[in-house]
């Protein structure tokens, strides 16, 4: 082999490629020779944490991935679930954390681009995007810049491609000061018999490259995402790719048009590790090999080496294998959409990828060695020291407040709780005519055209809980996300996760990971929700400081009839207000304790999975029976914030409410504690008996606590006024807090 083979592979070069000497020796042993530099580059990206999941794969096996409706579980570009009526949904969530911290606008934009490609690659029209964003505290000097950049990047990319961004979450916490999180979710809709996989089958079939040209951008992006940040991270800016949403839009339309024909054998996008990853993975799934000729690859500039071409992470590129004889038609279709396209290789019999440059071989590697060769690491775990100091809270040090009005106002102005219209108004959330409700209720709800069905989507994780107890925190993330779906009238059908953690080489971080995945797996099994896709993002640390463990989950729910769509806001004066579920004296890890008392400590609220299931069942029965007018999950800020939101989040007509609550616990725990499995509902007085009976039958605590109406939110606890605030003022505070900070 020519070219790069002349460069001697030294231990230093191996280290620069992020491989350990042990890994290098393994490559040498299995290959029976020393790899050349280009091949070493391939191993570097394919065996990186980002592509190989070597630290996490062992634990991910604990997640339930099967179910009667699962058409495709993890392992493909995204997961697929049958929703009946001949239709299926394809969805996945993925991180773009490291690039977004270095260059927020392009980092976030290309995150959107990547996840969109994962969805339409499989044949689905992308119909919804969501995102989960986490930034440092509002007083950190970089936060405002990062928020603006990330939101602008998502806005620009998503809007241009014509896929609505329908919901999401945004959190601020000092643990993200040096390492923000940008997790992007996409869902597509597809006829259930028209799903395409990334398989290169059929010896002799042509391999076609199409999309944008290959440039020198993004080389070693996957390796960058597999190490910690330090002072030199800013220098990594050249490894951040630049997105072209217009090219992506053309790719979407061209792919969906191509997929109407029966020419495609397999198709995959070029994401992390570019042409290398898609070539090896497509061959790997089919048990075949591929021969590639690099001189045929459409290139942005002359003089690129095989190493650069193979490792480039230029955006908006695809690889497709078509039936032999159909390549002419396929190329013509790509040219109709003004896309670059070229036949760059063909499928071969032996499971080996051979890559040539002008006819001379530059790479010759067995597929399996590259794809599955990295050893699963069972990294050591250790119970973290920090938990000894934070896992309890001494409530005697927290003065029980006599009045809650000021606390409520502070919580409503906390950037974690305040309204996010400044963000979602920058996203086109209506295009494609499916969005049934504006962003800002518990879950986003989209109709499925041509049927009565609708889909509910929610993304969630309270990482403070996960920091205090990763097992319980991950369970709560699942339970809360499910509850958001339930409150909107849907039944959960599938879940995707994005597991954001620190450096896995540290046993305490690995312990967090193990705990969180176990907790998530247990909760998913209990609720019978398959995990069909996901992504692991490790090394989220800067200068040795890790983020809180953040196992973000996105749950997809199905409404058999879109008339079941329920929103969180109060709708009629004189409606009664009821609380489903039990309130306990739990303040650990709460937003109240953090915002008002500046304490991040205690145990996260207790989660009783059986109770959660009964509460969900009751809520759905009430919705299906047409017995309630609103349902809202109690989460950050507890009952107090849930009440305020039900009053003020109505898009046109906010309403007041008067509550009379009986309590045997502290006032602050009663109103601002975050006890789990609680849903705030409102309903017409004539339905009261029916509600009470249903709750009794299911053994779910239920109490009528007040009435809708008036211009004030009044909360009396045990007959004493605890909160009495004007609705217009609460709305003003909640509506404007984030905007006045970021702009």
């Amino acid at each position, binding site marked *: 082999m020519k070219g790069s083979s002349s460069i001697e592979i030294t231990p230093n070069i191996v280290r620069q490629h992020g491989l350990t000497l042990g890994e290098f020796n393994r490559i040498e042993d299995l290959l029976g020779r020393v790899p050349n530099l280009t091949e070493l580059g391939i191993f570097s990206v394919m065996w990186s944490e980002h592509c190989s999941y070597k630290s996490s794969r062992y634990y991910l096996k604990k997640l339930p991935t099967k179910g009667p409706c699962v058409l495709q579980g993890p392992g493909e570009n995204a997961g697929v679930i049958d929703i009946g009526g001949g239709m299926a949904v394809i969805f996945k969530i993925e991180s773009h954390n490291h690039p977004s911290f270095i260059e927020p606008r392009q980092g976030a934009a290309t995150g959107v681009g990547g996840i969109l490609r994962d969805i339409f690659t499989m044949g689905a029209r992308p119909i919804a995007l969501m995102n989960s964003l986490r930034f440092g505290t509002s007083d950190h000097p970089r936060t405002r810049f990062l928020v603006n950049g990330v939101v*602008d990047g998502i*806005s*620009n990319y998503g*809007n*241009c*491609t*014509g896929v609505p961004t329908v919901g999401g979450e945004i959190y601020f916490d000092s643990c993200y000061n040096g390492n923000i999180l940008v997790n992007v979710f996409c869902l597509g809709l597809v006829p259930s018999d028209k799903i395409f996989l990334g398989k290169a089958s059929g010896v002799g079939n042509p391999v076609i490259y199409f999309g944008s040209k290959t440039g020198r951008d993004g080389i070693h992006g996957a390796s960058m995402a597999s190490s910690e940040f330090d002072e030199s991270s800013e220098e990594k800016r050249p490894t951040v790719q630049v997105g*072209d*949403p*217009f*090219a992506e*839009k*053309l790719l979407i339309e061209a792919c969906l048009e191509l997929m109407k024909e029966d020419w495609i054998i397999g198709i995959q996008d070029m994401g992390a590790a570019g042409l290398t990853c898609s070539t090896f993975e497509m061959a790997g799934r089919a048990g075949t090999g591929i021969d590639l000729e690099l001189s045929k690859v459409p290139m942005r500039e002359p003089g690129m080496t095989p190493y650069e071409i193979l490792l480039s992470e230029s955006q908006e590129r695809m690889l497709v294998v078509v039936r032999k004889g159909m390549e002419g038609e396929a190329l013509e279709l790509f040219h109709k*959409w*003004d896309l670059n396209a070229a036949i760059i290789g063909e499928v071969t019999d032996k499971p080996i990828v051979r890559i040539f440059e002008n006819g001379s071989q530059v790479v010759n590697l067995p597929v399996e060695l590259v794809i599955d060769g990295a050893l699963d690491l069972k990294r050591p775990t250790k119970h973290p020291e920090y938990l000894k100091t934070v896992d309890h809270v001494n409530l005697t040090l927290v003065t029980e407040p006599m009045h809650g009005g000021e606390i409520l106002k502070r919580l409503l102005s906390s950037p974690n709780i305040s309204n996010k*219209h400044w963000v*979602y*108004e*920058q*996203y*086109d*959330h*209506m*295009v*494609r*005519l499916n969005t*049934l409700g504006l962003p800002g209720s518990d879950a986003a709800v989209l*109709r499925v*055209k041509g049927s009565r069905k609708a889909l509910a989507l929610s993304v969630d994780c309270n990482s403070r809980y996960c920091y205090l107890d990763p097992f319980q925190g991950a369970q709560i993330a699942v339970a809360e996300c499910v509850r958001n779906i339930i409150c909107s009238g849907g039944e959960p059908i599938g879940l995707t996760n994005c597991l954001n953690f620190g450096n896995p080489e540290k046993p305490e971080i690995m312990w967090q990971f193990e705990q969180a995945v176990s907790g998530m797996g247990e909760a998913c099994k209990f609720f019978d929700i398959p995990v069909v896709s996901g992504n692991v993002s490790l090394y989220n640390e800067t200068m040795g400081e890790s983020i809180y463990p953040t196992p973000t989950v996105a749950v997809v729910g199905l409404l058999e009839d*879109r008339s079941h769509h329920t929103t969180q806001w109060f709708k009629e004066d004189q409606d009664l207000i009821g609380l489903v579920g039990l309130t306990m004296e739990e303040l650990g890890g709460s937003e109240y304790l953090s915002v008002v008392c500046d304490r991040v400590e205690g145990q996260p609220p207790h989660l009783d999975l059986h109770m959660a299931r009964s509460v969900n069942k009751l809520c759905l029965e009430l919705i299906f029976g047409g017995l309630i007018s609103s349902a809202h999950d109690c989460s950050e800020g507890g009952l107090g914030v849930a009440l305020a939101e039900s009053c003020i989040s109505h898009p046109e007509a906010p309403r007041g409410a008067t509550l009379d609550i009986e309590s045997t616990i502290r006032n602050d725990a009663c109103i601002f504690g975050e006890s789990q499995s609680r849903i705030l509902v409102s309903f017409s007085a004539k339905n009261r008996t029916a509600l009470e009976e249903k709750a009794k039958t299911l053994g779910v605590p239920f109490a009528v606590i007040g009435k809708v109406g008036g211009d004030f939110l009044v909360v009396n606890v045990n007959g004493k006024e605890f909160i009495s605030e004007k609705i217009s003022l609460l709305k003003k505070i909640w509506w404007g807090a984030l905007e006045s900070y970021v702009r």
Partner: protein
Amino acid sequence: MNCGVVVFPGSNCDHDCFHVLKHVFKLKTEWVWHKDSIDLSRFDLIVLPGGYSYGDYLRAGAIAQFSSVMKEVVRFAGSGGMVLGICNGFQILVESGILPGALIQNHAQKFICKTVHLRVENVSNSFSRECVHKSVLNLPIAHHQGNYFIGSDGLRQLEDNRQVVFRYCGPAGEATEEFNPNGSVSNIAGIINEGRNVMGLMPHPERCADPAWSNRDGQLIFKSIINSLQSGVSV
């Protein structure tokens, strides 16, 4: 009645317009590809949909004016054919010189997607005849470059000729700066040409015309067009 929805590379409200015309109003509707230079005279209505034609690189709508199909649209409009340009379609009409003025960056320099109030300024035309004069409609906007600009002479001409059809306003119809979402001159949201057969507007009537929504104000615009064409009289 034949409708044509033009598809530019980067159009992204083309499916929405097609859906409303074909499935809500049950009209015969066809796609018109941007590379086609075909005679459009068989159509009664041409819709230029929203989106990012040619990526909106350079300036929104600036490249689309040079497409093959736009030469035909100019000819079609010149001979009295009805053309509706929504959002990016409005930008293309302005860039092509079919409608006067310019659409520049929103004054806040950000994309805005939300439902706004519009005051109907003129009902004596084929695009808004079903509306009540000075009534207030609710229509969504979704754009980054919707800030309508025109010089003072041009503005006077527009007003004198009664070419302004919609203005951004408050819930009670107050067309003040407070309710101007993007900085448009005189709160202008939609205009017609002098011949009154071409309308461009930034808000999206197709986003509130499907019966699945409680807000169906966008239907008024489509009904106006249909009734004008069916009665054969343009007002």
